[in-house]
């Protein structure tokens, strides 16, 4: 092969540079004047309802230059498809490309222009249609051609983002003027460039369209975190959802010392943009060593691919949900009525059953490896629920909870992972009219790494023969049936119900000896541990301690088992009892941040302030991004009259979570004492709008009074049974 001489190479570079440079300057200048002309025109009629300096409010989207940008500045996805055909075809079927146009989104967002005004849609469209928002299209009598709607989040929306403002969400990104190349000085060349140029200078292309930021969870936080600001609801700040915060509090972030289990650092992209093989043809220039990051963003949405007929996306979504990696269902124990004995763990413990026995089954559902809650984000629109069946040897159904009714709706007494936001009238906020939410009457989920205990009671028929099969499964439907009915009318086809995970056990009438565990089952110590976590979250402290005690019996080397006993005692306000277990944990695992954190809380109660601060400092040193440790250390310093140190901790906390109430409250006081009046006023105002409205629970109570089925579900400890009379008695007793 002949290589060019250095002189020849220099000539080529110089020639190329001379050719490109004028074009670059021309492109920049053209773009700049075109943008100014466009923005001037938009400004003439734009509704600046939320302030001249906040054209995207109530959303947070912004673009460099702080002015409207013409939609034509965004190269279309078909332009990118020339070299990224596989990524393009994945994107076309993915949620991001359909972020605006789907009926499921339009149904909700269309209500705003029909009622409050189109300008309010900027809150939603900052993420769902950023080209529309930044192009100034979301205004009355818009003069903007909306052809871009069908591409939703196109390639050059995400790949033009230059920074995220904070982790406040609501589209909290700053976009650059879209560019697919930089010049030799690293300056972005706006708009499309000939493909030959990109192929000639692939690094300059990468420099323009790829940033390390894109691989971080903070990047996703720009839109996978949302709040309802008072500009939108004319009420107050309300947290809408935050998959990012949930991830940050999970074991996958490595930022939280308080998780029950640990894991390697795993970003959002690692799960939702798994690398997939690049198939040739077609050519996929984004591939490295034969793979590239999937642009399907597989998650839970089956409705969009079902509606559009994107069969491949639908199939892969179902496979993703059913991969078995994320949830674990454990048919953990039974209790026979009339005895207090818990037969547990099932499989490891022999027991007897007889006809006419009334049996309570305890099902533990563990959010094993989801980096956020089940289901994340808008639980008013999605449906996940537990289906539990008991069948006799002939397959006859003895008990069934969580069934689908003929009209497609779920048994209202099912254990569901949904929520019920309510308005000022205590009515369920249907159609995702989030701007009317004043309270949340019910919100059930399983946070990352945690477990829930679901109890079912049934009676074995007196004439039952053979063995009973009990099955618990977690089903998922995107979207709630009644919402689908609202969107499409009641004559729509049935939308997919995906069983995510399922576990069955056979209960014989007579003797049930211990049996070998199923490969998918957790080891017994972990089964007890998950039960303990579930009890703890259901405020059943005594039972939780009992469960965790089984853990340390089975795993005396497991420091976290002792810490779990300690933290349960703290929750139970038995600080004295907590100390011994925490010290045991620290004996097994010196400097264990989790144990140190809880020990510091005990020390605070004991008045051992120096020890408390020293322990929290150790936690912060190990986990500088721990919200809890920063918060508690800030409080410790504050109580010890160390305002500068306290301020430092609360500011650090605010950098991790800009919405932390404790930080707002304490900083308002601390700044005020330091004479920083403006900053104090700002923090004070933020505290005032973000703190819980003490009147809000009234709206929830109104709803719960009218919905006894949800009222029952909202009690942390509740039983699912067909014995209505018994249930009423138990509720009264409770």
């Amino acid at each position, binding site marked *: 092969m002949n290589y060019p001489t250095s002189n020849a190479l220099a000539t080529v570079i110089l020639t190329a540079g001379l050719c490109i440079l004028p074009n670059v300057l021309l492109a920049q200048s053209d773009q700049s004047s075109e943008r100014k002309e466009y923005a001037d025109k938009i400004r003439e009629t734009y509704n600046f309802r939320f302030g001249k300096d906040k054209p995207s409010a109530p959303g947070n989207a912004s673009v460099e230059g702080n002015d409207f940008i013409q939609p034509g500045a965004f190269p279309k996805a078909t332009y990118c498809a020339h070299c990224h055909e596989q990524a393009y075809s994945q994107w076309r079927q993915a949620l991001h490309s359909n972020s605006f*146009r789907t*009926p499921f989104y*339009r*149904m909700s967002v*269309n*209500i705003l222009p*029909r*009622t*409050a005004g189109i300008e309010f849609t900027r809150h939603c469209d900052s993420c769902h249609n950023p080209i529309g928002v930044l192009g100034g299209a979301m205004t009355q*009598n*818009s*003069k*903007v*051609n*909306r*052809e871009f*709607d*069908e591409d939703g989040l196109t390639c050059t929306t995400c790949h033009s983002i230059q920074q995220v403002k904070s982790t406040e969400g609501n589209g909290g990104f700053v976009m650059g003027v879209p560019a697919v190349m930089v010049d030799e000085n690293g300056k972005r060349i706006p708009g499309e460039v000939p493909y030959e140029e990109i192929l000639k200078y692939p690094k300059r292309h990468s420099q323009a369209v790829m940033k390390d930021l894109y691989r971080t969870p903070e990047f996703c936080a720009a839109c996978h975190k949302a709040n309802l600001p008072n500009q939108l609801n004319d009420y107050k700040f309300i947290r809408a959802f935050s998959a990012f915060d949930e991830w940050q509090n999970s074991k996958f972030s490595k930022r939280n010392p308080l998780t029950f289990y640990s894991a390697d650092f795993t970003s959002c992209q690692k799960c939702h943009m798994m690398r997939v093989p690049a198939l040739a043809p077609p050519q996929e220039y984004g591939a490295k060593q034969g793979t590239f990051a999937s642009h399907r963003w597989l998650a839970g949405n089956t409705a969009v691919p079902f*509606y*559009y*007929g994107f069969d491949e996306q639908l199939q892969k979504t179902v496979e993703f949900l059913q991969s078995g990696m994320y949830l674990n269902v454990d048919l953990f124990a039974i209790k026979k009525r009339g005895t207090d004995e818990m037969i547990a763990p099932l499989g490891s413990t022999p027991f007897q059953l007889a006809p006419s026995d009334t049996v309570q089954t305890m099902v533990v559902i563990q959010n094993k490896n989801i980096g956020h809650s089940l289901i994340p984000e808008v639980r008013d629109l999605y449906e996940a629920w537990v289906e539990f069946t008991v069948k006799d040897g002939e397959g006859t159904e003895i008990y069934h909870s969580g069934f689908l009714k003929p009209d497609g709706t779920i048994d209202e007494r099912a254990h569901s992972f949904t929520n019920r936001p309510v308005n000022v009238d205590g009515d369920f906020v*249907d*159609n995702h*009219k989030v701007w*009317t939410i004043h309270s949340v009457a019910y919100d059930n989920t399983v946070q990352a790494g945690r477990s829930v205990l679901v109890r079912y009671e049934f009676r074995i028929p007196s004439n039952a023969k053979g063995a009973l099969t009990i099955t618990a499964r977690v089903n998922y439907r995107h979207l709630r049936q009644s919402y689908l*009915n*609202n*969107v*499409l*009318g*009641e*004559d*729509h086809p049935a939308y997919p119900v995906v069983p995510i995970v399922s576990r069955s056990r056979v209960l014989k009438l007579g003797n049930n000896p211990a049996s070998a565990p199923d490969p998918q089952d957790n080891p017994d110590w972990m089964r007890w541990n998950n039960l303990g976590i579930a009890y703890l979250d259901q405020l059943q402290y005594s039972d939780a301690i009992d469960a965790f005690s089984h853990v340390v019996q089975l795993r005396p080397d497991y420091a976290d088992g002792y810490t779990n006993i300690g933290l349960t005692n703290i929750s139970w306000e038995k600080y004295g009892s907590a100390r011994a277990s925490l010290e045991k944990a620290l004996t097994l695992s010196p400097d264990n941040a989790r144990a140190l954190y809880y020990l510091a809380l005990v020390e605070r109660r004991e008045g051992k302030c120096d020890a408390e601060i020293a322990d929290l400092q150790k936690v912060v040193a190990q986990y500088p991004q721990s919200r809890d440790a920063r918060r508690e250390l800030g409080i410790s310093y504050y109580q010890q009259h160390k305002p500068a140190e306290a301020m430092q901790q609360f500011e650090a906390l605010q950098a991790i979570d800009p919405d932390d109430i404790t930080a707002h409250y304490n900083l308002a006081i601390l700044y005020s004492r330091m004479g920083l009046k403006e900053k104090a006023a700002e923090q004070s105002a933020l505290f005032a709008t973000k703190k819980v409205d003490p009147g809000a629970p009234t709206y929830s109570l109104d709803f719960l009074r009218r919905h006894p089925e949800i009222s029952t579900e909202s009690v942390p400890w509740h039983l699912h049974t067909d014995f209505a009379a018994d249930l009423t008695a138990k509720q009264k007793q409770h």
Partner: protein
Amino acid sequence: MRTWEPIVLAVLLFSPALCRAQQSCLWLNAATAGGVLGGPVNSTVLRTGANLSNPRTPNAKSGAGPTSANPTKAAAYGVNAVDDSECLFVRQPGSSFGELRIEVRTMSEPRKDFPAYAARCGDHATALQAIGNEAAVCSLNDKPGQFSEQVVGRVRDRAFIVRLSVNNPSLSQSSVREKTRQTAEQVAGSLF
């Protein structure tokens, strides 16, 4: 003057059920229509709704309707059919002929009423996926030298008809069909 224009004029002047409103088209803005037709357009909106004295009754509390699937429910909102209208976008004089017509009607009994709308495409319609609840496209080509494509579809109890007619040698029949499909998607999106 085209043959249909006197008829439209007569209808506008004499029909009590129709009125001409100086309003924007609710289903598509003129800029988007201009994009479809390839240049600036003149637009006309004919409102045909029942409650014209209160054309945009806000359904602020429920947020639902007037596009309810259930006519009884829609009636409860008191706004059923108020948005029914017909929008006509025509390329401005001096350019090649292009016309985009959008019609939206509320059906009291969608199952019974929609077939009559669907019949506007006859037997040669091709079903379209993911445009409203259901939709089909067909070629009309009723005038020489002109491509004319029509989508007839439904969102719950609202029927919509989108007809695009162009006389532009640079456009093929299939590209006109694609533009019509895209426009129909925009219209259906507004109806949800």
